[in-house]
């Protein structure tokens, strides 16, 4: 072989290696300069995993700093697994939302199931018992290839996992849009509870000589390189990535929850961390880095499902239901006994050392001895190119769509499942296990009763992809404002936010611009309503064959009210109640109606509108109503598709509505989107009308009577009526 060909081959090999480990040339140079030498074989794998977008947040980190705002209820958790909110009375919650988009598109049942499992571990690794879960789902059009299978599979995955672990799934949002045909979104959220005196567990490794212990399921090949898979776009070969998807076992997870909470309660544990993305690699490096210590770990001691696994496979496996913890040697036997009681193994992998180095051993052989901060703290940070947000769809002259036929639109929307109640999804979730649930998926806001104080903890997921499609800034403000309004209308004050930022390829300027505009907007809105963004996750590269999803910053917002008694329903209660609309004017558009024609709506924005003030007023409404002793049957924020669509969603099998007699506007206007408003139904129409006028006095808010509830009738205007029974039967239909 000539030396020239040898050179060429080694260059090809090198390029291939970069590709396999998904590292760029610059990243390779940074890696060698940090190490001051060429990396050892195992170090390629470590850098690849921990510098993946998924683990390092390299494209988003400089922007996520904008979420640093905290108030007295939200302690700074310094990079712990989930954010914490202090609710007073000694009660705290931990909560977080996370994406599992890529695995769910490849294998929907396992992808979604392990998404639920992963977020639960983030919560109980802190010592909190998970008390409620939620999800945010975006699917493509029902008729798109594989979509029905994906929808059914994702729902099955969430339900089979969540139901078995015994955590109620209390709320969720399902969006359908063509822009998710080739890349669905599956975001899972979980909330954990700390009662008075219950200690919080941390992930900071500490105490040289303490044992590093592996607990839970054995390690297999599933999910090897999963983190870096989730950090790149899909192509025609995405199906072949199936072996990268992890397999979940909810029964194991349930045992792990009980065993971990028990050893934490008995104080056998110094630090604990779940093995999530990039498995043992990220958990060990993060625990060491956060604790400012080193670890010695013998990979040969990791319990394996398949004894032929290499050190690299073991380090990168994303097998589910595993935790890494640190305990004092004196407590190990007791710890092991507790895990054994729950049918689980605990194996010592090594120990904590003072020197800040991670020493990975393969029996007697040292594979690497490396400063964890070189990989964790010194990971690359990219300030990706973006441009200032320019409101491409904003206009001063908003035109109504021509020839809009509400009857036809409703019928088509029901066919496409875009208007339907997601009953077929929700009734596969156990919504009441735990016996804390006061309101679940039937309500726009879920409430559970807190064990100690008896107060109501509310939860809503937010972000409406259609609004994001119209404008990334408005859409992201809406992802905070709208859930906060929904909470306020049920008498709950928004306290804190978690987010799951789902975007396309951040190396495309237009997408990075949307990312930056929406992060800025979420930070602004969260500050305005005093609900800090305390945890979250970023999922980039939601792109298939160059086609990107709608940028979707999903949010989860928690709120608190004094009790779970007397919660006002979303649905109509009895016939002949007066329907009153309370409406402010921030943004006007036809986003929902035009979207069903695949047209992006223009919008008109009123710069003088004060949304936070409106939300504040809404929060005080319930007590104002109670003070006057008035009866309100139902209350609901006006959702997309305007008053008409919202009233349809408030119907029950017995009660419909009639908007024909006090309506001055055209029927088309009933389907216009105007942010924000709400509908209230009461048999004391005149009294409630007067109260609303007084309550919102001084704000630019319109209060008007718009109709009445009826017995099994749906009438929009004198000439627009739809068949009640037919609508109801289609409305509850799903897959």
């Amino acid at each position, binding site marked *: 072989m000539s030396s020239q060909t040898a050179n060429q081959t080694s260059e090809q090999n090198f390029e291939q290696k970069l590709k396999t480990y998904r590292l760029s040339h610059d990243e390779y140079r940074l890696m060698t300069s940090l190490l001051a030498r060429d990396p050892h074989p195992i170090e390629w794998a470590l850098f690849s995993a921990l510098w993946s977008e998924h683990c390092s947040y390299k494209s988003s980190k400089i922007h996520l700093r904008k979420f640093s705002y905290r108030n007295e209820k939200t302690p700074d958790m310094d990079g712990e697994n989930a954010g914490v909110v202090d609710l007073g009375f000694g009660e705290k919650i931990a909560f977080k939302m996370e994406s599992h988009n890529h695995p769910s598109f490849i294998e929907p049942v396992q992808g979604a199931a392990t998404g639920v499992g992963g977020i639960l571990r983030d919560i109980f690794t802190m010592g909190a018992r998970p008390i409620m879960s939620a999800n945010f789902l975006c699917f493509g059009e029902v008729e798109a290839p594989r979509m029905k299978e994906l929808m059914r599979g994702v729902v099955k995955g969430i*339900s089979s996992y969540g139901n078995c672990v015994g955590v109620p799934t209390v709320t969720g949002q399902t969006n359908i849009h063509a822009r998710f045909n080739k890349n669905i979104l599956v975001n899972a959220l979980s909330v954990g509870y700390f009662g008075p005196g219950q200690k919080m567990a941390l992930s900071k490794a500490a105490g040289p000589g303490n044992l590093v212990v592996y607990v839970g399921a054995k390690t297999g090949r599933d999910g090897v390189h999963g983190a870096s898979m989730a950090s790149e776009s899909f192509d025609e070969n995405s199906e072949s990535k199936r072996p990268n998807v992890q397999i979940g076992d909810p*029964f194991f997870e349930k045992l792990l929850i009980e065993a971990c909470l028990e050893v934490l309660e008995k104080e056998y544990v110094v630090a604990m961390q779940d093995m999530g993305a990039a498995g043992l690699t990220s958990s060990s490096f993060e625990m060491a880095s956060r604790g400012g210590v080193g670890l010695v770990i013998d990979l040969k001691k990791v319990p394996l499902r398949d004894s032929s696994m290499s050190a690299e496979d073991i380090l990168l496996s994303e097998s589910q239901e595993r935790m890494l913890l640190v305990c004092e040697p004196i407590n190990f036997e007791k710890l092991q006994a507790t895990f054994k009681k729950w049918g689980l193994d605990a194996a010592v992998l090594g120990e904590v050392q003072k020197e800040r180095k991670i020493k990975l051993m393969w029996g007697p052989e040292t594979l690497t001895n490396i400063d964890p901060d070189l990989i964790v703290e010194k990971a690359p940070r990219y300030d990706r190119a973006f441009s200032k947000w320019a409101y491409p769809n904003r206009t001063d002259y908003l035109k109504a769509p021509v020839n809009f036929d509400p009857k036809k639109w409703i019928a088509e929307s029901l066919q496409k499942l875009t208007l339907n109640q997601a009953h077929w999804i929700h009734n596969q*979730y*156990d919504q*009441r*296990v*735990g016996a804390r649930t*006061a309101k679940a998926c039937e309500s726009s806001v879920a409430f559970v009763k807190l064990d100690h104080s008896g107060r109501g903890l509310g939860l809503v997921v937010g972000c409406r992809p259609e609004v994001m499609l119209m404008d990334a800034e408005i859409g992201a403000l809406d992802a905070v404002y709208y859930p906060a309004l929904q909470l306020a209308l049920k008498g709950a004050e928004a306290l804190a936010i978690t987010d799951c930022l789902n975007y396309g390829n951040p190396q495309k300027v237009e997408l990075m611009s949307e990312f930056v505009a929406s992060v800025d907007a979420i930070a602004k809105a969260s500050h305005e309503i005093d609900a800090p963004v305390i945890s979250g996750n970023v999922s980039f590269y939601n792109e298939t064959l160059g086609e990107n999803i709608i940028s979707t910053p999903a949010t989860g917002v928690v709120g608190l009210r004094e009790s779970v008694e007397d919660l006002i329903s979303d649905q109509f209660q009895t016939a002949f109640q007066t329907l009153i609309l309370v409406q402010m004017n921030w943004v006007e558009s036809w986003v929902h109606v035009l979207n069903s024609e695949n047209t992006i709506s223009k919008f008109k924005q009123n710069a003088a509108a004060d949304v936070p003030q409106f939300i504040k007023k809404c929060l005080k409404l319930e007590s104002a109503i109670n003070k006057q002793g008035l009866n309100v049957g139902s209350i609901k924020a006006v959702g997309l598709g305007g008053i008409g669509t919202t009233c349809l969603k408030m119907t029950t099998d017995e009660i419909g509505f009639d908007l024909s007699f006090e309506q001055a506007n055209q029927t088309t206007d009933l389907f216009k989107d105007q942010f924000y408003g709400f509908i209230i139904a009461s048999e004391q129409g005149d009294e409630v009308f007067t109260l609303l006028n007084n309550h919102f006095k001084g704000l630019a808010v319109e209060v008007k009577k718009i109709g009445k509830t009826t017995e099994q009738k749906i009438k929009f205007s004198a000439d627009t009526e739809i068949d009640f029974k037919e609508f109801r039967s289609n409305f509850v239909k799903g897959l």
Partner: protein
Amino acid sequence: MGLKVGIARFLGTNCDEDVRKWVLSKSATADYLWYEDQFDPNAYDMVIIPGGFSYGDYLRCGALAALTPVMKSVREFAKKEKPILGICNGFQILCESGLLPGALLRNKDQRFKDQWVTLKVEQNKNHFSKKMTTGQILKLPIAHGEGNYYAEGDTLKMMADQNQIWLTYRQENPNGALMNIAGITNEKHNICGLMPHPERAQTTWMGSSDGAFFL
């Protein structure tokens, strides 16, 4: 002296805390009965087997739990004609143990189902119906994948003759159960099993307080 209740706990039980809260709210005392241990049948006045996914529902729901040491003691407890209540997975375990007749199959649409159901009390001759009247209508939630009650024709007939059919679904049968059966008892009426969850319907804020009639 309050009622002493034993609550069986298997690997995968997930309604244990909920049942305990319920029992304690009735000024009774509650002890967990761990699946690996036997207990003294004289130490308790009542045993409840809560819902969940014992052994992850592997093999068949309740099949593995039925073989555990704690169930040996439950059998002895049953012989003394003391009251036993099995809820959801607890009902499945009682059927698998042979303490109740019949079996619970996959729901007819093959899906897990969570919803509110309307029930009719067919007979109130058992310990858990003391506060109910025959013919009373109850609203309770269900949450199960295998609640489709099945028994052979002869068995069903015998059960009907002996007033063993306790609760039936009204309006809608959510899982395909024969004769709309939601709950049954043994022939002595001391062992009762039902698919709905009374512990999740104790006060109005939960959506119904009809679960309060059971204890």
